[in-house]
């Protein structure tokens, strides 16, 4: 992997699913001045572990330090620095009902999603795609005056 100082990286951290484990991770990042771009966490099915996905930036040397420091935390079982991965992020976006609904629907479908809720005044769509494409979706969505966009953060799995 190229040693680019500010390259985007994704790390998966498998941890014991116990109280305050997430704060151990985030306080480590804060204390050592590491950057968190996005963070997701959810329990791993049928286990007492959780899967945390962290998107961050830095050189490969910094990544090595982050990985080692994470591994030192007692409840951390495994740290995976992703290289060959499938990466997805989910986004929810809310638009005024007066906007062009057909366009919005087609747009969300183009990014692996669709309409998930329609109310009196608002329409909500969901998309789930690679982080780069999610960025494109958000740019494209601006045309339809979104009231609110919520990003879910990256999840990744090694290929």
């Amino acid at each position: 992997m190229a040693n680019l100082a500010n390259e985007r990286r994704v790390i998966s951290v498998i941890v014991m699913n116990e109280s305050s484990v997430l704060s151990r991770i985030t306080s480590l990042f804060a204390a050592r001045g590491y950057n968190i771009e996005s963070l997701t966490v959810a329990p791993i099915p049928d286990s007492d572990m959780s899967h945390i996905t962290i998107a961050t930036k830095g050189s490969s040397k910094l990544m090595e330090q982050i990985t080692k420091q994470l591994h030192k935390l007692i409840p951390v079982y495994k740290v995976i620095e992703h290289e060959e991965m499938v990466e997805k992020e989910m986004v929810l976006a809310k638009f005024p009902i007066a906007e062009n609904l057909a366009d919005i629907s087609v747009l969300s479908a183009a990014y692996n999603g669709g309409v998930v809720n329609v109310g009196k005044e608002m329409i909500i769509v969901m998309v789930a795609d690679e982080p780069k494409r999610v960025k494109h979706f958000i740019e494209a969505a601006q045309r339809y005056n979104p009231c609110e966009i919520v990003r879910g953060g990256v999840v990744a799995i090694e290929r």
Partner: protein
Amino acid sequence: MAQMSGAQMVCEAIIAEGVKTVFGYPGGAIMHVYDEIYKQEGFEHILNRHEQASVHAADGYARATGEVGVAMVTSGPGFTNAVTGLATAYMDSIPLVVISGQVPLALIGTDGFQEIDAVGISRPCTKHNFLVRTLEELPRVLKEAFYIARSGRPGPVLVDIPKDITVDIGEFVYPDSVDIPTYKPTYKGNKRQIEKAVEAIKKAKKPLLYIGGGVVLSNAYELVRELAKKTQIPVVETLMARGVMGAKNPLLLGMLGMHGNYASNMAMSETDLVISLGARFDDRVTGKLSEFAKYADIIHVDIDAANIGKLVDVDYPIVGDVTEVLEAMLPQLDDVDTDRYEAWRNILKRYDELHPQSYVDSDEVIKPQWAIERIGELIGEDAIITSDVGQHQMWAAQHYPFDRPRQWINSGGLGTMGFGFPAALGAKRAFPEKTVVNVTGDGSILMNMQELVTAAEYKIPVINMILNNHFLGMVRQWQTFFYEKRYSETDLTFQPNWKALAEACGGIGYDVSTKAEFDAAIKDAIKQDKVCFMNVAVNRFEDVLPMVPSGGALFNMMLPQTTKGDA
């Protein structure tokens, strides 16, 4: 199965772990545990007069013995007072279990009286911490706390116990063993890496053993001495490793770093192979990183993988316990050609002759370096030396003839003023037959002077040797060198009456200003069964030298006047 309260379980666990002395201070949230302490006879409890001192005392006990030190405090301010102690132990990897009371479970999160988020505050300064949530998990948590504290790279562990859990009654079975699937320290070094490192040693021309506090923690000093003897490779020690080689060992160059001696710092600057054992390339050791060991390949043995490659690029990384790594490495060095390094040894010998560790003595005034050397002559190997932080600490590290590890106890990583006196109490409690001297200054000693009362009450006769220059000396030294002598808030001309202060608290005081008085005082103090303040008036403007200015290259040292010109 024994039924008992959570408080009793705490005491039973402490006894089961073989702890003989607990240092602490009671309060509301921990009272049930103190009630059980009153009833039991398995361990003694020392009541310090401040929670910070309790943790430092447990720390001193741990450093002197190698066992886990235990301190106990209450919630809120009891805990926050303990934080400096936890951080001190954390930075120097000292195994501690600190038990703190917490408000009852139902009150947590309500800003209850004396409530503070102890696990939140202590997260960055403990190896691990626990907030106990049920009585059922208490025995396991206590067992894990001791295990985590002493295993792998040691460190302090906090166990925060809500008050109601100490009251509740349940079944107590103390686990025999620990199984934490996420925590498996690496002890054995990689065989192939060790072989490569051995080859590198055999090929080197100017190898250097760089010894850190990890050797003390791993009790590996005999193996390190054997390695040096077998290979005839010269050795430098960090501040935390003083005593590993023994002052008389001809292969020991001395301490390296900001206040290292000339030969040690030059050795590091010119070596072609650094063999780092349990050291972590601290900034006070390396100086300017880009100039540090510039011509060397680096073998780095460390039990903490995160230390390897953190600051310097390493050619031969070996993650493992230094004891196990050396046991594997030593037999492979049977055929090492020690003559190979002779020219190198001679160069370093010349460096040391050119600029030995030295100072200009005086007949008019006691020089602090003389005072250190003198106690070395008078009590030498029988003593345990603790220290506070500042000039006196560096003089002690430079000039005391340490001849074994665990003889030198100081706060290296965090640099905690006020550490020395309570740490001395812990060390003396562990080794009552040894003379324990806290080398301190007129600044540091006041930061935990309430321990005079503790020491007097429990008859713990430690000697506080105050090298009194009426200054916060180390800051003053920097102000002299780097701030055009603007002595901002470092002048300590206003002083207590040290003798009276010690006596008021049940100790002994000595005012010393001549060498004869010094000898008389120290000889008297050793015989006493009382704690003492030995107020030694020393040269006011004495500097700690050599000195590498902060951020400078190791080979650019300010040297004492006694030396014979530039190399």
